[in-house]
């Protein structure tokens, strides 16, 4: 039942608003609204009950194991939430003068420094509001860099075929054309193809390492050399930073610019879709181009750098400071971890992934890439099961839901058929991993003996399988009164 269906004309959530409506005298009638918006008219209790009940129709980290590859669904410490919501932060107007905002600015400055240290970059801007916006900022900086050198012919961005969709989409938003670079069967980038692809038109290469195939790109130094020698820059998509945190730094691998999805590696909540943060870091030569705002420290006081301080900046990406509430949560999480905790994140995320991969193999699943270390994630391909038993990765996913596990990422990366991209993260206990593998094995047996169970899944959730085709054809995007 929709909240609108609990409405009763004239009902209000008093006492949440001023009791009376003050006069709007003085505003020209033609500028005023004629009829009230048709919002729900419910009591506070009805709203509380409705949304409390709705919330329970979600899977979430707090209720289920959520091994969603590429998404790093780790535990979101509750203290990160409650401390980021202290009144001193919540009530701060974004245009508060810096002198009255020192507590917040100090956190942001520390966060920039810690991100620099753990990624090996020279400077960071916290402005981008998600990974994709971080990519935008990064690629825009690459563009600005070439332009500042009068190197205007560089109109192409290289992207491996395993890349996330945001990479090519970003390049296009920044005015570049995109060229795809193939990946070898062993998961590494095809270095020959890359060498042939680079040239004076190359603005840069966008790369995730470890890649979305769940393996570490071993030729990273050679790749960097090829791109740099062609005059291009190297962009690091930090979605998989969790796998290498404190183990190897993108800056040391030769990357010129990176974004970090703080909502992945640094455990800010995904919130059912966002908000996130895609903080961007750069090597020295790109520093002048960083998006604003950036926080600097002078004589023990903190202040925002302005366009006057940074005339070459690519500019602003949002009205204020990106997503401060997200940044605070990431900052708090990083202070929890400290330098020693950072390394452990990568270690145990990797241990969990490799353990599950070994178990998957032992239980007869086909790995997309065999005989390699998993990074913090790995891929099972169900192409055999699909061929033999006519069950799809989607069927496996839906059946997992029935068994109380969130499904892994399916059908990404695109080059692996019928794939499950599995990322357990370091915060899950071994029992959860084993339980999940048991479920997967059970489903495999069901696929062999009674594939109908898979096709009919899920059965235990609030709804059965939903008709997506109808949704797209008979568009119903808002409640019609």
């Amino acid at each position, binding site marked *: 039942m929709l909240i609108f269906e609990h409405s009763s004309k004239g009902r209000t959530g008093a006492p949440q*608003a001023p009791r009376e409506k003050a006069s709007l005298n003085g505003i020209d009638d033609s500028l005023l609204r004629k009829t009230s918006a048709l*919002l729900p008219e419910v009591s506070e209790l009805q709203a509380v009950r409705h949304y409390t009940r709705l919330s329970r129709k979600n899977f*979430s980290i707090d209720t289920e194991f959520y091994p969603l590859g590429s998404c790093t669904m780790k535990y979101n410490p509750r203290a990160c939430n409650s401390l980021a919501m202290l009144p001193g932060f919540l009530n701060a107007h974004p245009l508060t003068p810096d002198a009255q905002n020192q507590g917040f600015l100090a956190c942001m400055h520390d966060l920039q420094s810690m991100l620099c240290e753990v990624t090996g970059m020279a400077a960071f801007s916290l402005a981008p509001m998600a990974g994709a916006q971080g990519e935008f900022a990064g690629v825009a900086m690459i563009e600005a860099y070439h332009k500042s050198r009068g190197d205007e012919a560089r109109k192409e961005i290289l992207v491996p075929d395993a890349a996330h969709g945001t990479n090519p989409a970003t390049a296009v938003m920044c005015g570049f054309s995109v060229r795809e670079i193939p990946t070898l069967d062993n998961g590494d980038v095809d270095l020959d193809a890359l060498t042939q692809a680079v040239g004076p038109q190359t603005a840069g290469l966008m790369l995730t390492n470890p890649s979305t195939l769940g393996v570490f790109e071993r030729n990273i130094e050679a790749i960097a050399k090829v791109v740099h020698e062609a005059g291009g820059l190297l962009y690091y998509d930090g979605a998989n930073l969790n796998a290498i945190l404190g183990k*190897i730094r993108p800056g040391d691998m030769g990357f010129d610019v990176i974004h970090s999805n703080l909502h992945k590696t640094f455990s800010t909540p995904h919130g059912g879709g966002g908000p996130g943060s895609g903080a961007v870091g750069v090597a020295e030569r790109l520093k002048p181009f960083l998006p604003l705002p950036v926080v600097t420290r002078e004589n023990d006081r903190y202040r925002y750098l302005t366009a006057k301080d940074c005339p070459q900046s690519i500019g602003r990406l949002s009205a204020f400071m990106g997503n401060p509430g997200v940044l605070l949560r990431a900052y708090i999480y990083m202070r929890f971890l400290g330098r020693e905790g950072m390394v452990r994140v990568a270690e145990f995320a990797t241990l969990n992934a490799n353990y599950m991969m070994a178990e998957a193999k032992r239980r007869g699943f086909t790995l997309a890439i065999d005989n390699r270390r998993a990074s913090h994630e790995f891929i099972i391909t169900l192409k055999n099961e699909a061929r033999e038993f006519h069950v799809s990765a989607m069927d496996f996913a839906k059946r997992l839901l029935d068994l109380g596990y969130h499904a892994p990422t399916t059908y990404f990366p695109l080059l692996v058929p019928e794939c499950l991209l599995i990322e357990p993260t370091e915060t899950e206990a071994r029992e959860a991993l084993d339980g999940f593998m048991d479920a997967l094995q059970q489903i495999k047996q069901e696929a062999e003996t009674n594939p109908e169970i898979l096709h009919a899944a899920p059965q235990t959730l609030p*709804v059965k399988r939903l008709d997506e085709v109808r949704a797209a054809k008979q568009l119903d995007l808002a409640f019609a009164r």
Partner: protein
Amino acid sequence: MPFIPHTDNEITQMLETIGVDSIDDLFDEIPAHLRTAVLDAIPTGMTEMEVSRLMQQRAAQNSSALCFIGAGAYDHHIPAAVWEITTRGEFYSAYTPYQAEASQGTLQLTYEYQSMMTALTAMDVSNASMYDGASSLAEAILMAVRANRKSKSRKILVPTTVNPVYRKTAHTIVKGQNIELIEVPYDETSGTATLAQFKQQAEAQQGGDITALVLQQPNFFGTLEAVDEITDWAHENNILVIAVINPLTVAVLKPPGEWGSDEKIRGADIACGDGQPLGAPMSAGGPYYGLLCCRQALVRQMPGRIVGRTVDLDGREGFVLTLQAREQHIRRSKATSNICTNQGLVVTASTIYMSIMGAQGLENTAAACFANNNTLVEKLTTIAGIKKAFNSRCFHETVLQLEQPAAAVLKALVEKGILGGYDLSDDYPELGSAILVCTTEMRSADDIDAYVSAMQQVMATGLAGEAEAVPC
């Protein structure tokens, strides 16, 4: 080990299963000479007790002065229920609802959000959110360029009454795609963008081909634009209208879907704005969210996620992400935008907020903001040396011109516990010493009097000499 559950015993067993001796072996594909040594600049880890104390100290360092700043972020009351429910684990720690059957909570809520947002704006379609108001304007412009196939110019008219940071942000984001944002100056008496100015700028362009125009209501100065006549003119000239709105004030102001007088082509084509006034705390600048609505015909140009209602195998109602072929994870380089993660949790809060407030609650709140601003401005302008910059009625913020230097006045007010407004001198030097002063329903009569009396004292003191002494 913070947040890592492994016992020694388990580690040993797991390594055995994998067939390696140590965790370090798992990293043997990484070139040894590249391995990170110590992360010196990162302090050592803290317990929750220690982190809590640190953050409490930091939070306490922030000012708790009375806030009279608006300029794009507003200090509104948020019912306690809103964030208590929003931060329930099931909303807070869920991912994007790609697995629809396991995400009906988020999906239905988003559908309800879309329904509320279209009701508020009187537009046909809403997406599930963009990052913030400024970036949603940028996306609206990109969308207009894609949608207006008859126009080739990629020229957008943007009055300077549109929030300056919105204009800057839009510029950052659209400039790579060869789009030109053309400034339209405002009328100095009314502080609004007049139709005459729009016409003049349009005619100044060769060929007169304009792709879209932007109109903010209430505008950055708090004054009200003549939305009807400008919309009519735009539509007569094949110019798409992009409305920038404050979703709270639209509870009492004419919604963008009804702008214009001509019944046939009535309404803005795209409406965008920041959702912050509807349940998001100011929080030093975010997270907020960008609202983005459009006419039905433009839906396939919409960036970002959209939720649709459908049925399950048994014919039961359910909700899914729909029209995904617009998005980067399907369409890649041909997507409508690169956006992936949006501002879902803030939308969750906002949806609960709108449910609890209802239209009546929003209207009363908006009207209280208006009334409070009138009161404040009336009182402040009785002080010698303070006058309104424009002769129009303002909504809940007003530009005041001061005979003392704005920066020095604001600094003196802060020392009296008042965040007195936003200094306009950087963005609008032509206004001289001017500040933008905002009141919401949160500013009580006592607060307003406190401001007025602080301002009286400040203006009675000569501050001219101090103007230089306030760098930040």
